[in-house]
């Protein structure tokens, strides 16, 4: 009975299992999303307002597609994550650069918004598990939480690297070390749900710092690949991993039917 229930949950879960490929794509999607939005705003010259409107429209379209699907489809899921990453970043940037809200104010606000989302999610569903995203309502909680982790990750990350002056070199070390601690805690038996969401927040600034480390000029301490080549490299790896997951997913589904 229990087994059948779990089995049904796994087949219908709308979001992926958390694997190494999951975290690799998640970390690289930050840089790709940010470069894409920056490219539209500055190089193409659309400006911030038009770019924000475009990415928000794309996100709504991708989210509608993701929610309509009856099961997890890798490319739709990851397209939605990349767009949530971009919009989450733009919300923080609009507050910081457009409205002059200090990162010291927006960081606790986003932390509170994320906590409120989890509280509402838990109050309604009695679980925050990402292994049973099997209803429309749970999926909306999931994506709302993800949006706020990106906004919070951007604000907290910018606060550390820019306002406090950590820089992206130390940023990679500090955020990487924090994720290593969360990973160790998880394998030592800490709460899996808590560890997942902490890692989800921390991989945002890690991804941004890592992207900066590769793209920034050598005179600023980067490796000097430039944002375009860094993002193209990341995008290639993401597409390859998503293709791999799609094929892997199909063979698993075939195994299950057999």
């Amino acid at each position, binding site marked *: 009975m229990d087994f059948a229930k779990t089995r049904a949950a796994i087949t219908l879960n709308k979001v992926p299992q958390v694997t190494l490929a999951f975290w690799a794509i998640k970390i690289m999607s930050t840089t790709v999303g940010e470069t894409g939005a920056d490219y539209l705003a500055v190089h193409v010259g659309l400006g911030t307002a038009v770019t924000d409107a475009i990415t928000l429209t794309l996100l709504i379209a991708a989210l509608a597609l993701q929610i309509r699907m009856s099961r997890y489809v890798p490319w739709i899921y990851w397209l939605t994550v990349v767009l949530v990453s971009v919009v989450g970043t733009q919300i923080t940037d609009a507050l910081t650069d457009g409205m002059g809200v200090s990162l010291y104010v927006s960081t606790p606000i986003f932390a509170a918004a994320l906590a409120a989302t989890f509280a509402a999610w838990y109050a309604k569903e009695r679980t925050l598990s990402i292994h049973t995203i099997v209803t429309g309502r749970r999926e909306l909680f999931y994506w709302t939480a993800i949006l706020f982790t990106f906004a919070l990750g951007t604000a907290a990350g910018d606060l550390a690297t820019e306002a406090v002056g950590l820089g992206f070199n130390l940023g*990679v070390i500090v955020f990487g070390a924090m994720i290593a601690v969360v990973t160790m805690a998880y*394998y030592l038996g800490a709460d899996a749900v808590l560890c997942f969401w902490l890692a989800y927040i921390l991989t945002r600034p890690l991804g941004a710092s*890592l992207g900066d480390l590769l793209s*920034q*000029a050598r005179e600023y301490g*980067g490796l000097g690949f430039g944002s375009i080549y860094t993002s193209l490299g990341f995008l290639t790896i993401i597409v390859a991993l998503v293709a791999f997951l799609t094929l892997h997913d199909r063979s698993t589904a075939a195994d299950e039917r057999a």
Partner: protein
Amino acid sequence: MPTQKTFHRIVLSALLGVGPLSASILSAPFVVAGSTQAQAASSKLGDLTSFRNLVADSKALLDKGDLVGAKARLKDLETSWDEAEAGLKPRAAADWHTLDKAIDRALTAARATSPDLAACKSALDEILATMDRLAGRS
């Protein structure tokens, strides 16, 4: 099957641990290089010469009445300034914002539907003055 899963977990945690460690070893020399450079430069933001040259070029073109040329130089300034944000801002966030706002005002002035040449010139002068002030030259 469970043994395989345990093995995968061990590999995963090892990789996650090794990642940040190798990144820190790789980037350690750059941290040192970055901080010494920042100390050697006159402005807290470091060497702003390349950005200052673009503003001066734009100003010279504007003085000749070449608004299109001036706007093209300003676009070069916008893209290179934006590209360097992650490198420059951590050095002195307040200074970066002061200069960023000055550049923004010049871009807005030059891109107005009917640009006011005098306003454009004063906006460009304002960027140069801000850069010089930050470098402690005035």
